[in-house]
């Protein structure tokens, strides 16, 4: 019963991964997908999930063959000082940039959908203050909180989806292939990095109790996320029809504004807090990962102390773009396109180098004994 300090178990890990990636169904990611895929948008997460198996499997193969080493340490080990620094710098760049853009989007959601008169900076600052506080508390706490709040968040999402399913019409899903099968496959593979967060999860390996837990956790959460995002995307179409859903900026929020249950006609305020909590936890994880990479880059051991400064920077940088709903939407769509190759190439590269160095063979030999 020895308490492993600062490490989290499989439940917390799965919860954290689901909150980190699954919350995407409730921002503008669906809108980005629908733009090209129309009513076949719900197929995209399936394809992306299926394609993601390759990089994830490669990474698992490499990372778990080193005892207690996360992605950062593995990259260091495989590529040496200079190239390792470069790769981690790119990863940090992506994570930090994604953090800025995503928080800006979420601030915009809160601003346009609920608090139209409150200045963006106030909403943004409150969001980041909570995230910085959480990030500062450390990884174990983030894991615990994800597990503590996950059931309630998922139940609220499920209620919203089920209610809207009964208010919508399944025939909106037809024609079933949307813009055509090749278009669907092509466009969804370009959006591969919607699940790109899984790369960053490998950084957290040293925080998980055992590699076996990690291994299982990654696959379970991938399955859950794919199922969840697919279901949500389907229900947006069922609720609004593809023509309308393509015009919506934030389908989840339009959805919770439209569903009703008995005498309660305006229910969005029931779902809103859960979504908020999920977003807080999500950005706390992002914040923590970005700070961790930052700490590794510049050799700051106690990188938690850098979090408040980074959070402040995020607020100021994130409020630069004007009319955020549109401009950030474009930036974000581009970021997804840009980071897709990295999501594929990096794991492949790591695997090849590891193979070349012979680290994997050694491990295999050990396993066979």
């Amino acid at each position, binding site marked *: 019963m020895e308490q492993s300090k600062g490490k989290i178990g499989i439940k917390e890990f799965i919860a954290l991964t689901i909150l980190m990636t699954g919350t995407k169904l409730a921002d503008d990611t669906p809108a980005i997908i629908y733009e090209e895929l129309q009513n076949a948008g719900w197929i995209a997460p399936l394809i992306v999930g299926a394609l993601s198996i390759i990089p994830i499997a490669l990474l698992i193969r490499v990372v778990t063959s080193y005892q207690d080493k996360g992605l950062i340490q593995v990259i260091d080990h495989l590529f040496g000082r200079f190239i390792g620094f470069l790769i981690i710098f790119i990863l940090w760049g992506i994570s930090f940039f994604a953090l800025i853009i995503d928080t800006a989007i979420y601030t915009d959601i809160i601003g346009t959908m609920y608090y139209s008169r409150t200045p963006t900076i*106030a909403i943004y600052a409150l969001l980041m203050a909570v995230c910085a506080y959480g990030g500062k508390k450390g990884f174990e706490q983030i894991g615990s909180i994800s597990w503590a709040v996950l059931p309630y968040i998922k139940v609220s999402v499920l209620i919203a989806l089920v209610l809207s399913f009964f208010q919508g019409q399944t025939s909106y899903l037809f024609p079933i292939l*949307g813009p*055509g099968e090749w278009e669907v496959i092509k466009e969804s593979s370009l959006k591969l990095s919607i699940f790109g967060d899984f790369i960053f999860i490998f950084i957290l390996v040293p925080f998980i109790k055992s590699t076996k837990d990690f291994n299982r956790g990654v696959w379970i959460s991938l399955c859950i996320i794919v199922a969840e995002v697919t279901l949500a995307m389907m229900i947006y179409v069922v609720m609004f029809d593809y023509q309308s859903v393509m015009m919506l900026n934030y389908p989840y929020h339009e959805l919770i504004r439209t569903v009703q249950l008995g005498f309660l006609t305006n229910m969005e305020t029931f779902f809103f807090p859960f979504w908020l909590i999920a977003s807080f936890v999500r950005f706390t994880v992002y914040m923590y990962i970005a700070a961790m990479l930052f700490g590794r880059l510049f050799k700051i051991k106690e990188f938690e102390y850098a979090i408040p400064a980074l959070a402040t920077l995020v607020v100021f940088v994130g409020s630069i773009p004007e009319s955020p709903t549109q401009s950030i939407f474009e930036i974000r769509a581009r970021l997804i396109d840009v980071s897709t190759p990295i999501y594929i190439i990096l794991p492949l590269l790591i695997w090849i180098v590891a193979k070349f160095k012979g680290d994997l063979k050694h491990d295999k030999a050990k396993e066979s004994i």
Partner: protein
Amino acid sequence: MTKQKSLFKMLCLLSFLLLLLSGCWDQKEVEKMAYVVAIGLDQDEEDENRVKITYLISNPEVGSLAQGGGAAGEEPPREIISFTADDFITSRNLANTVVAKEITYDLLRILVVSEDFAKNKKFLRWLYDATKEREIRRDIKILVTKEQTSSFMIDNQPLLETRPHEYFEMLFNRGKKAGMVPSSDLLTFFRITEADADLFAAAYGTAQQNDNSSGKNKDPEQAIAGELQYGGETNTVQYAGSALFKEGIMIDTLTIEETRLMFLLHPTENPVAILTNLPDPFNEEYQIATRIRPNGQVKFDMNLKKETPSIDVTVPVIIEVLTNHSGTNFAKDSEKRIKLKESFEDRITKKFEELIKKTQDEYGTEPFGWSLVARKEFLRISDWESFDWMKTYPDIEINVSTEVRLGNFGRQGEMLNIKDVRD
């Protein structure tokens, strides 16, 4: 590290407190709001690019028994103002020249549009303003009125429901259940307009009673709002029939009967039960009062890939016989029952055919939502779009059949034979 730690704590606390101190931007006190329940939209008489807006504002103090209400009983339940504005978003400020409180659309339940304005090509642009405004929800209803909305609102004086929002809510719920008016919400309007395939049916109402003689002895089934004659001490407003919108512009109205048939043909929107009269096949003099209920889903057999596409529609209904003036005893006679069934089937199918013919010839497309069913026949959106439902529909060969299942014959099956009594 303690230095950082304490400093960090201070920072957290301070920034949080500062945030708290500077809050309250979106704060609004409920009692300082004027709750608009209905917005009326009319074409401005002088300027084509402006609209005349009518607000129906609910007075919260009416109907509450709260302490301290004081003279609430003497205040009127509502306030109506009409004015010209560029759109109904900026009009919120304009209204403040008359109304002291801040205008809010939180309780907005219904958008009333006059028939003239709905037939205007520019109508759609103004309606789409609703998608931008945060406070307007997509589930509000659309009502088309025969006259100017401002006069409609003033004439609309419900006697029993003092609170306007309650009145509209109940009216629409009931109307939909009885099959008199379609449910016509904004969400569906936008969806149908964007999908560009079907017709949208909005509720139709008026406060003016048509006094011309043609309406006098009209079969109530064939009437639309304003043509029914009501006596007594009541509100003059009537809601009946529906207004059809094609590509966002109103093109025609449907009578009560047509509205009901439309409901029966619709694959998803089914009324609970329709009370109506059908002619008695055994005695032409009399009518049989019936309750018609849909009996499961409407069945479709579509064959759209042919040169002349065809659709076979089967409408299953349950008919309950409620009155029997002719005294024919069909409850116990199976032959008579079969005859009754056949007569019902013929009658309803004929009505369906008439309506479908009208939609094909006059409107060019249908208000039944069949395009949704048709979509299932296609694999890709491009195929569906090149098929072009709206273009193809008039040429489709449509066969309707009705499957009647007789329900109960009322509480007491057998009828007194009046002729025997009079002997």
